[in-house]
């Protein structure tokens, strides 16, 4: 069934979009990532104009994250206090990121910077997570006991300590604020919710338990992407509601399924799967930059005189 999208001005297959939304929704519920870093390239591939794809993707992420967060809330695996602290940092970061983005745009080559950002961050995060979780899986097989976690470091010497009961942490608010800020900046530049950076940052930098991380990440993604949606809708007019509805119907159902799958899996398994997924996307983007493209030319809207 073909559907004509009023803002994107292209006609697409409705079932294809429902399916894509569903797959990305499952990943979202399982791993606590918004899925923007997967969906945006997929939408480019089926011929949606990039500006519309990025803006509309934000709406779908709001929907699937909200669906996922409700599932996690019932399971009490959302640290609302930690989420709020991260969110405060994140919103400031997003605002800074938009300023930085516009500055880079004035210098030219912003597309290249975004792509390089993707390759570097996906590569580093994916690689580190893969190695760490693979070791954890091997250790749990050999010893059978939980791995030892470093409990004290410089992080614990900082002031403004707060109790994060759900995460089982008693740490200063400064590290989560900084993590939120940095992720916010990156998210604004790369045009994504930032879940795939936030999740590893919470696990490895803040030492939060994997099960809590997913719900908490989704919680703050809702607000960041809702903010992005409003920005795109009011400044670029590129939010396509018909496209969004098709994607989010699949997305919200997928998120529920994903949240249930996630609960049944071990934390190390979840982490290694996320790491593999991140590495695959990274590899694809790196190949695009390195291999000779099949079409050297591309068309874009003229800037006007």
């Amino acid at each position, binding site marked *: 069934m073909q559907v004509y999208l*009023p803002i994107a001005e292209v006609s697409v297959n409705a079932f294809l979009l429902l399916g894509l939304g569903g797959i990305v929704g499952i990943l979202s519920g399982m791993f606590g990532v918004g899925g923007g870093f997967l969906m945006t390239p997929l939408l480019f591939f089926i011929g949606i104009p990039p500006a519309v794809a990025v803006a509309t993707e934000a709406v779908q992420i709001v*929907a699937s994250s909200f669906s996922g967060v409700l599932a996690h809330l019932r399971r009490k695996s959302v640290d609302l206090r930690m989420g709020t602290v991260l969110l405060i940092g994140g919103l400031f970061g997003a605002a800074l990121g938009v300023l930085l983005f516009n500055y880079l745009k004035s210098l030219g*080559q912003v597309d290249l910077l975004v792509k390089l950002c993707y390759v570097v961050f996906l590569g580093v995060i994916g690689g580190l997570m893969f190695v760490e979780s693979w070791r954890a899986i091997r250790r749990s097989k050999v010893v059978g006991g939980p791995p030892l976690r470093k409990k004290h470091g410089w992080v614990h010497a900082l002031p403004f300590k707060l109790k994060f009961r759900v995460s089982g942490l008693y740490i200063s608010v400064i590290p989560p604020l900084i993590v939120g800020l940095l992720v916010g900046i990156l998210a604004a530049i790369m045009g994504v919710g930032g879940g795939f950076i936030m999740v590893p940052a919470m696990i490895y930098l803040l030492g939060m338990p994997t099960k809590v991380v997913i719900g908490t990440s989704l919680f703050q993604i809702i607000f960041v992407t809702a903010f992005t949606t409003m920005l795109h*809708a009011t400044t670029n007019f590129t939010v396509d509601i018909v496209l969004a509805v098709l994607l989010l119907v699949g997305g919200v159902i997928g998120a529920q399924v994903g949240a249930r799958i996630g609960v049944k899996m071990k934390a190390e398994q979840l982490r290694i799967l996320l790491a593999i997924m991140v590495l695959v996307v990274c590899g694809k983007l790196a190949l695009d930059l390195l291999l000779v*493209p099949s079409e*050297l*030319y*591309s068309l874009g809207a003229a800037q006007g005189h």
Partner: protein
Amino acid sequence: MLRLLSLLVLLALPVQGEEIVLGLSRDEVAITANFDGSDVMIFGAVKREAPAPGGGPLEVIITLAGPSESVLVRRKERRLGIWVNTDSVEVDVAPSFYAVATSAPFRDVLTEVEDLRYGVSIPRVIRSVGAPASVANSETFTEALIRIRAASGLYQVLDSQVDIEEETLFRGQIALPAALTEGEYVARIFITRGGVVMDEYQTSIAVYKAGLERWLFEMSRNQPFWYGLMSLAIAISAGWLASAAFRIFAR
């Protein structure tokens, strides 16, 4: 329909030389939610008072052009091992859609000179004057534009696809793709003999969004704030609905 047109030709008043009488299968295309491309049939007859003149057989050319816009064409080059956009050329005028259908191979129907004069073939309807001097081979950018648009069905060359009967009646069909931009689509019909244009006729087809598509498009432009909030409201309620539905399902 063809019979009606023949009648029209017989009843026609005497005219000088040869003249085109035209019909269209539709003079407007409404883009609705389930729009998936559309065929436009362009048919007509040649009206003449005297017997057909010499100078080669009668040939017909039909063109259909979408609204024009300027396009930025970028070229990638390898720098430090990675492929990046380097040079770019702004093509000043390029139709968003262009189809040219002829009754015989294009060069047999129209001479180079006449093509230049009337602007019929695809390279002739694209105008690029603003190529900066720093960019080498700026014509390759125009070629790339034609190649990319042709690959997605936006530029079509339909050689020998106009049927002519008895040197009088002609008809051709042009398929509009699903990815259409709104606007006035201009149809031009030429009759030629020996590669020289005998008569030209021009009409237009209105392509516009209708129904829900129109309403959403207007809202996104006129009330962007409320449009954004509406999008978020839909997203949140869909998320909540799915969650509630699964809870019932899980029990």
